[in-house]
């Protein structure tokens, strides 16, 4: 099964969903996402992953991704296949999927080894002027998981802050799961339909999951827990260290409420109140 997540890049990563995938010991996943800031690293370390299609896998403020390194360098816990992308090629692949187009043509990375390392790309030339192009084939995830500030019960979802590749990923997917910080009445969504990132017609499940993105931030709701990323980085240098981290934070917490409770005072301290957007009347 292919799953796109972390599609707003560094913020709004649905870590609560990642943790639950690990708790359920899902296997053979194909992960799709641009940056994924430790989310993919955890899933790789937990042995859930068969293939990764990504532009960058690491710990944005702290450094390299230890589990990803162990998998690639030593096959621990298992070998994984990597399809190298850039942020732009991944955005184009998902946009092609969202448009129902077979591919998008681009000039990025035509001289990069990425263009050769990823066997899905096809070199081409423009029939309009004969210049070299690279064709980036569509990616259509089986499932895209988005974390948003609010959604109604049908899955019509408002996201503000960076959209990254989230909208393309949702529209390209066979199905979408929404983790909403708040589930709200339909009329709240319908009061501002330009704020909707994905319509309910694409959504198969809506979960009210406050704090679902911790340790990543959610605009106007809570800040990034920078120190948590550093703790993860230090704790997961060894496979044993990662096992311990997992036992503490994932398997040691039966659900996301328990995970937040384990954070203690640290969690309410991250809360943001934000500043209100200027009024718009429809």
């Amino acid at each position, binding site marked *: 099964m292919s799953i796109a997540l972390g599609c707003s890049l560094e913020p709004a990563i649905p870590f609560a969903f990642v943790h639950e995938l690990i708790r359920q010991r899902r296997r053979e996943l194909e992960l799709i996402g641009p940056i994924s800031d430790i989310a993919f690293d955890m899933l790789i370390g937990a042995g859930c992953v068969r293939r990764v299609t990504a532009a960058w896998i690491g710990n944005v403020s702290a450094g390299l991704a230890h589990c990803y390194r162990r998998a*690639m360098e030593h096959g621990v816990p298992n070998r994984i296949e990597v399809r190298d992308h850039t942020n*732009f090629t991944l955005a*184009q692949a998902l946009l092609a999927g969202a448009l129902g187009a077979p591919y998008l043509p681009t000039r*990025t990375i035509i001289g990069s080894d990425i263009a050769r*390392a990823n066997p899905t790309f096809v070199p081409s030339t423009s029939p309009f002027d004969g210049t070299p192009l690279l064709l980036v084939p569509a990616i259509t995830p089986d499932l895209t998981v988005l974390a948003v500030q609010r959604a109604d019960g049908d899955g019509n979802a408002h996201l503000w*802050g960076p*959209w990254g590749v989230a909208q*393309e990923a949702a529209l390209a997917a066979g199905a979408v799961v929404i983790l909403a910080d708040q589930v709200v009445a339909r009329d709240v969504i319908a009061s501002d339909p330009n704020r909707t990132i994905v319509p309910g017609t694409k959504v198969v499940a809506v979960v009210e999951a406050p704090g679902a993105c911790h340790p990543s931030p959610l605009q106007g709701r809570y800040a990034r827990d920078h120190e948590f990323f550093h703790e993860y980085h230090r704790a997961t240098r060894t496979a044993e260290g990662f096992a311990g981290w997992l036992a503490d934070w994932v398997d040691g917490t039966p659900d996301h409420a328990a995970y937040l409770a384990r954070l203690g005072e640290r969690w309410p301290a991250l809360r943001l109140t934000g500043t209100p957007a200027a009024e718009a009347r429809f």
Partner: protein
Amino acid sequence: MAPVDVSPGEVMVAQAAREIQDGERVFVGMRLPLIAFVVAKRTHAPNAVGLFELGIVRDQPARELLYTMGDPPNVAGAVWCARTIDLMGLLQRGDVDAGFIGGAEIDRHGNLNTTVIGEDRTHPSVQLPGSGGGADIASLAHRLIVIMAHDRRRLRERVDFITSPGYGDGPGWRDRVGFPRGGPAVLITTLGVFRFVGGEAVLRSYHTHSSVADIREQTGWELRVADDVHQTEPPSADVLAIVREYDPEGFWTRRGE
């Protein structure tokens, strides 16, 4: 005289800020370039505009130090918060003047590796994080500004994997493979500053704490030195004050010291 306790990071930030011209649209990125953008805006380039590849455009720097470009303070007060592909579209169209990137390895032609150490992509000796948007910026910005830690293992005769292309094997290569423009203009390291001449890095200045000899020792290719090689201009007290106000803990500017 510059203050005596200036860190290499601060020298690099000051130099990077000088690379931003007033009114330019710059793909800023994170870490030192982010702070260079703050310095440039508050000194000689008040009309520069910062673009962040996840989908943000700012005409004023964020009020707080950022740990990632997606931190809430980077969205608050932005003039545009959009999609990654909107920003990348501007880049591919040629609407972006300059971009910053870093890397684990670079060669004399400015080709960068951020993907893998080792000959075999599928069995790396060191797995690096990958491109992110770096390869896109290197491919499509009008002008590339590279920032790197400087040692022989990083400045290599050949890199194991070209993630972000510079000038390939030399002049004419970018045209030949089909890039519409661009290439590295400058390489700012922890030891000195290189300019690219005929698709090749030439040392133009060494930082106060370094020398041409040090740099030759720490460079994995046969060093080319400009006739007018000189000491890098140290950051002024004003610039240092801006840097230290923005990054009071030295999270980015004194990292790893």
